[in-house]
């Protein structure tokens, strides 16, 4: 028999009981749709992350003091930023320094304990270009005078104020930052100039974070030499990290959730497969006369078996196709609402179709073998 004949035969078998075909294909469709949507949504989210990272740049490394051998807080030498700038592939290096025991208040009336969890950082003048930060409004600091720039969270907590009370005096707010995804610690900080920190708050000048940008291809090489460059005397008291890795890792924790949903989709698919098998078993029972007739018309056992397996394959393939379509649709809608790029990897399409074919073959095999084993006389008279 030719494939086209076989397909026509299988299609006729399904067409003659359309409601049952639709219902049993629905089980498969739901399973495939769930899996497609889960993978689609998670890869759309990853595509969004990649887009974000591409905009932020993945070539930023940060240097922070670690701990000494004795478990105390280490300090970075004052010279660390300028030393790091001398590494060939480093394009820029800038620093912030935590001002110890400094707390910022909305007014001078606020009790000393209610600091709002904001930290006060001395910032180099070239901080923003290196960390990829932008001013939401206002302008950057004047390093010599008592002026501050507020991080986005700090601005929300302090409110829209013209000046803040810090270290026993008023400081003028010159600007507010947008959130800085690669340096989220800046969001909760109040930034002041390096020199004013020293002159008004007694800041010791030790940087607590050095931000660097390097040539993309050489980030790993730079990473290897950053610690000894920042602190040649005790390189192991220096921590080096890559903020884009942290962002990726945060997104990766969602993968566990994705795996769980994928598992649920697989269960739905299994149940769908059982539905198809059930439909096929009933179909074989009901169509004994047809089987007998076909045997009398000269169908071999193999041809009867192939007919029913093909029917099962077609049934689950229809379900799978509908499911993939539905999954694409769900992904698309979700991505649109989240303002993400909608991405469904090609392997999902291939995997979905492959899975339904495997399910169809397994579900149809036993009923088809039973149909083929049926003796023609039994089929005709029973």
């Amino acid at each position, binding site marked *: *028999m*030719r494939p*086209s*004949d076989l397909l026509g*035969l299988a299609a*006729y078998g399904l*067409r*003659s009981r359309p409601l049952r075909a639709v219902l049993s294909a629905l089980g498969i469709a739901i399973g495939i749709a769930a899996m497609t949507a889960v993978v689609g949504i998670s890869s759309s989210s990853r595509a969004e992350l990649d887009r974000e990272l591409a905009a932020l740049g993945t070539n930023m490394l940060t240097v922070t003091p670690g701990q000494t051998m004795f478990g105390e807080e280490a300090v970075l030498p004052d010279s660390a930023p300028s030393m790091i700038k001398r590494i060939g592939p480093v394009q820029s290096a800038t620093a912030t320094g935590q001002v110890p025991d400094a707390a910022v208040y909305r007014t001078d009336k606020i009790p000393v304990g209610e600091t709002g969890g904001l930290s006060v950082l001395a910032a180099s003048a070239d901080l923003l270009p290196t960390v990829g930060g932008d001013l939401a409004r206002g302008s950057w600091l004047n390093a010599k005078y008592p002026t501050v720039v507020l991080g986005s969270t700090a601005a929300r907590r302090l409110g829209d104020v013209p000046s803040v009370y810090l270290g026993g005096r008023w400081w003028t707010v010159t600007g507010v930052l947008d959130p800085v995804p690669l340096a989220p610690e800046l969001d909760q900080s109040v930034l002041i100039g390096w020199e004013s920190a020293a002159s008004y708050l007694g800041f010791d000048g030790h940087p607590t974070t050095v931000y660097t940008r390097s040539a993309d291809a050489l980030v790993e090489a730079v990473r290897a030499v950053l610690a000894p460059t920042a602190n040649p005397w005790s390189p192991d008291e220096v921590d080096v990290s890559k903020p884009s890795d942290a962002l990726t890792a945060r997104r990766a924790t969602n993968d566990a959730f994705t795996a769980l949903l994928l598992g649920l989709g697989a269960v739905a698919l299994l149940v769908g497969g059982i539905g198809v098998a059930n439909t096929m078993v009933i179909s074989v029972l009901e169509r004994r*006369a*047809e089987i*007998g*007739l*076909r*045997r*009398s*018309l*000269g*169908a*071999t*056992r*193999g*041809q009867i078996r192939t007919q029913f397996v093909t029917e099962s394959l077609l049934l689950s393939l229809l379900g799978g196709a509908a499911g993939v379509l539905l999954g694409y649709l769900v992904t698309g809608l979700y991505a649109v609402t989240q303002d993400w790029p909608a991405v469904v990897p090609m392997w999902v399409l291939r995997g979905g179709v492959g899975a339904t074919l495997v399910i169809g073959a397994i579900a149809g095999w036993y009923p088809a073998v039973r149909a083929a084993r049926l*003796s*023609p*006389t039994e089929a*005709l*008279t029973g």
Partner: protein
Amino acid sequence: MSAVIELAGVTKAYPGGVTAVRSVDLSVEYGELVAIVGPSGSGKTTMLHLIGTLDRPTQGSVRIDGHDVATLGDRQLSALRAGRIGFVFQQFHLAPGRTAIANVADGLLYSGVRRKEREWRAEAALVRVGLGDRLGHRPHQLSGGERQRVAIARAVAGDPAVLLADEPTGNLDSVSGAGVVELLRELNAAGTTVLIITHDHEIAGGLPRQVPMRDGRVI
């Protein structure tokens, strides 16, 4: 010499002790028109299954169109049925919802004929049984007699060596039944060997040769 059906000492016993056919000898020549006649339970239908190669005898040998059924496997038997044997059943066994021409063309599905050719031959067969104006009708739009004619067209579309009809008039009124028998006579006159299985002595009596059966034996 030129026997299309040759049964020699054929016995068919079913598990459980029922012996439907006992040591039957039967020879049918090419071009004959034969009735196997007997009351229900006489083993007629089992004879049809044995001659139609749908079942194998427990003893004895069955030769159809020169092939010894015992030596053939499932594929070869199926090929024999597809090419050399045509069946007509009491219940017609037409696919509901499919046109007459599609039902007849389905009869050629297993003989390796292309789709176009199948449809062309189906149309010719339907014209031959007098249903040239019913090609696109579905079974529920046809009378009982017309349905049986469609089934006969399906059986002869492949130009078989032998046509086996199992109670072809059993579900029909006497007028339609007579028409169907007349059609089978015409097909026989055109060269097809026809074997009619019936319990109706009136029908059998009008045929050139009768093989009466009772309790699994030819009498």
